């Protein structure tokens, strides 16, 4: 490993440091000037930096996946003492849902500790936090409940969750995602996020404020039936009809509702749910589906898909993934 070209390239150490700062730092103006000067002094540096930044973005997506599959373990840390959340905002766990039941115990402002709740691949789980807030996690999703803040703060890195937040004006509830944050007092809403590239917030009841990007962004206020979508860098807000609102939350009962939805939008959701690679050929990707598809079982899901749209065929690969193509397509 020590003989790779990365190690032979002297600008690589500096590039890694700038990539780290760009990802996790709050860069000052003078640091930005320093970075510009560093880039300007050698035209090759931009490409080296870009490769580290690409790795960093890849890790945003793959690390939560590896964690969800138990392939990466979080090392034990000694948390610094911090201000505790109100005692009743402790995680006491558990409520039955359609799928498995989550359970986690954490009590005591004196031993405030962050707590992770998660739903594994192919399962949905629901939890009740000790302030009474109900959280439903879609499959392959993990949520960090932060201790030690005057706010009720949770972090959602990659996945989907539905929240029914108990009203508490003194302690706002904040969902932090890589693409922005959602702040509420008491309401029902849904959050879907995929690293920093995608964020969907749908409001069922009450009012929420969404900040896209970092904390400096202007908040957008959403009300009942509103959906904010961030995709490819653009933000849009649309009002959903009652039926569309219900359809968008069908995952809570294990369904994907497609209403002329292209396969290219459906398959990534199913792939995340089952933790498998499910791809479409170019020809199949644009096929539009109008059906309710059950997400209990991958094989059944693929069978239902072919049943609904007879032009499609599915081939399985040895790694457990699937590829959807048009019949007769090479």
């Amino acid at each position, binding site marked *: 490993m020590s003989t790779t070209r990365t190690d032979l390239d002297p600008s690589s150490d500096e590039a890694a440091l700038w990539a*780290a700062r760009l990802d996790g730092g709050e860069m000052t103006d003078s640091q930005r000037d320093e970075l510009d000067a560093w880039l300007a002094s050698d035209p090759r540096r931009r490409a080296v930096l870009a490769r580290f930044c690409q790795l960093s973005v890849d890790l945003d997506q793959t690390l939560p996946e590896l964690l969800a599959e138990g392939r990466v373990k979080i090392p034990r840390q000694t948390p610094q003492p911090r201000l505790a959340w109100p005692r009743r905002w402790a995680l006491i766990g558990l409520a039955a849902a359609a799928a498995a039941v989550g359970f986690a115990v954490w009590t005591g402002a004196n031993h405030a500790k962050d707590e992770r709740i998660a739903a594994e691949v192919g399962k949905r789980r629901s939890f009740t936090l000790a302030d009474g807030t109900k959280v439903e996690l879609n499959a392959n999703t993990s949520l960090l409940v932060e201790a030690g803040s005057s706010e009720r703060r949770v972090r959602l890195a990659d996945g989907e969750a539905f929240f029914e937040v108990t009203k508490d004006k003194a302690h706002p509830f904040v969902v932090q995602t890589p693409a922005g944050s959602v702040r509420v007092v008491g309401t029902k809403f849904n959050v879907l996020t995929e690293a920093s590239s995608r964020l969907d917030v749908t409001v069922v009841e009450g009012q929420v404020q969404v900040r896209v990007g970092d904390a400096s962004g202007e908040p957008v206020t959403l009300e009942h039936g509103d959906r904010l979508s961030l995709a490819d860098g653009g933000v849009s807000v649309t009002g959903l009809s009652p039926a569309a609102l219900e359809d968008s939350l069908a995952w809570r009962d294990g369904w994907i509702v497609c209403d002329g939805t292209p396969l290219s939008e459906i398959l990534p959701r199913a792939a995340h749910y089952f933790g498998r690679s499910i791809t479409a050929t170019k020809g199949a990707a644009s096929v539009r589906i109008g059906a309710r598809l059950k997400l209990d079982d991958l094989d059944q899901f693929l069978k239902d898909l072919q049943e609904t749209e007879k032009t499609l065929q599915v081939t399985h690969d040895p790694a457990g993934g699937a590829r959807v193509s048009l019949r007769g397509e090479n």
Partner: protein
Amino acid sequence: MARQELEILEKAIAELPEGCKAVLLLRKIELLSHREISERLGIAVSTVEKQHARALRLLRSALEGRIDP
């Protein structure tokens, strides 16, 4: 990422020095900023930056080592 790359990544993460690994996971899984990580671990922000950068270098070397043996 392809399955083979994921396997390399999994192994490389397991082999990261403890400090590097803690910083990387706090950043990528718990989404803490460098400042927040420094407060959590009780180390300087500059140390957090260096460990984060080292983690990126080691993981990139591991992933590229496969392509350029």
